[in-house]
């Protein structure tokens, strides 16, 4: 009669032990690494209908963020500019560029450009740009070095834990309000002195309760 357990069953304990350690470790590591918004969301770089370069317009030409995103200080929304804003210059500069044809069409027909949204919060999170820029949170803090981007890319996870990291301790992330749109601003050596000064001039109390962001 043949043996019920062939000889290779002798390896079972060691194989099970290795699989029992490696398997869960890989699973946990995989979830930690791949399920995080640092993996799923950071790096999103949609192809826009017109390859508008922030690197050129902001980095080289030195346009202020608010030249186009004018409502950022007074509204929840940092607006995308109307086509007219493009045409302010492009009625005279690069008038015949093929890349700008959609802009010209939009200006002529009045139909808005269909830009693709890059930074997209969940619809149950109510973010307000006005509160953040007037409290001295720089554009670069959340959006990264836009002035070096040929195509805008999401640089931060925009996740709840990431928001709360700053809401629980906003001090080191603040800067003078006059430097909010400055892409090249760096914190002074004595950050604590600046933080103390900003807290005196304009104390902030960012909400950390649910209803602060979720209505």
């Amino acid at each position, binding site marked *: 009669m043949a043996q019920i357990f062939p000889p290779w069953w002798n390896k079972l304990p060691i194989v099970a032990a*290795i699989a029992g350690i*490696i398997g869960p470790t*890989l699973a946990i590591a*995989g979830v930690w*690494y*791949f*399920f*995080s*918004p*640092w*993996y*799923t*969301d*950071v*790096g*999103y*770089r*949609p*192809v826009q209908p017109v390859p508008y370069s922030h690197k050129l317009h902001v980095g080289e*030409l*030195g*346009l*202020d963020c*608010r*030249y186009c995103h*004018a409502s950022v200080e007074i509204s*929840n*929304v940092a*607006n*995308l500019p*109307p086509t*007219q*804003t493009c*045409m*302010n*210059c492009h*009625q*005279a*500069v*690069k008038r015949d560029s093929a890349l700008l044809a959609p802009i010209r069409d939009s200006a002529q027909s009045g*139909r*808005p450009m*269909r830009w693709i949204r890059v930074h*997209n919060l*969940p*619809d*149950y999170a109510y973010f307000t740009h006005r509160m953040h820029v007037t409290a001295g949170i720089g554009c670069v803090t959340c959006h990264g070095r836009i002035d070096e981007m040929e195509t805008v*890319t*999401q640089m931060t996870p925009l996740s709840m834990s990431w928001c709360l990291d700053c809401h629980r301790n906003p001090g080191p992330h603040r800067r003078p309000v*006059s430097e909010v749109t400055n892409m090249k601003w760096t914190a002074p050596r004595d950050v604590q002195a600046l933080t103390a000064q900003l807290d005196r001039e304009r104390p902030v109390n960012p909400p950390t309760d649910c209803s602060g962001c979720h209505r």
Partner: protein
Amino acid sequence: MIAPPPLKLPPPPRLRRTRRRASRVLGVIVLTSFIPLAGCARGCTSSRPPIHLNPSMDDQPKALPQTASTFFYDGASMRQPVPGTVAIGGLKEDVAFFTGKGADGQFVATIPVTADEALLERGRQRYVIYCQPCHDARGDGKGILFQRGSVPTATFHQEKILKYPDGQIFDVITNGVGLMPAYRWPIPPADRWAIIAYVRGLQRDRQARAASAPAGVK
């Protein structure tokens, strides 16, 4: 055809077997460590929209600012107010403040707000954002539009503009003139007056310098 039964080999020496097992384990570790590399590391760029593993209610069927709508005939989710709608506090009674023209239809000569430090500072900020790209920091009209596109831009230090009443500059910012488009949308009326106060300061500085400079030097 029936395959011949596998040849029974004598078991290899113990040392060789452990070595082979060790190399097999090593191979598994090496192979699994390549799994992340096969996909894409954190922060690598992609033009595909992010996949949310728990979509929850991240995307709700509601109208968000500046989004498209399949419901309204013009395809926009944001609606225009009915013509003639006046927002609370938005009744533009002060004609001079909102149009730059007095009751007689003439441009007002001076800005209808008090020009103090705060107004000038606000004017400087807004000037840097909206005017400097074309008119340059000193108001000479040598901004990027001139540098990159050779598009002539007016200098503020010309006789014509020096003589403009303040209300006329307000009208130019509001409605545009010549190549200059209207800046009604990004610059609210109070900021337009602040900019005018700042531009007047630029002009005064230039004239004071010209007056104090020796003849022939500008």
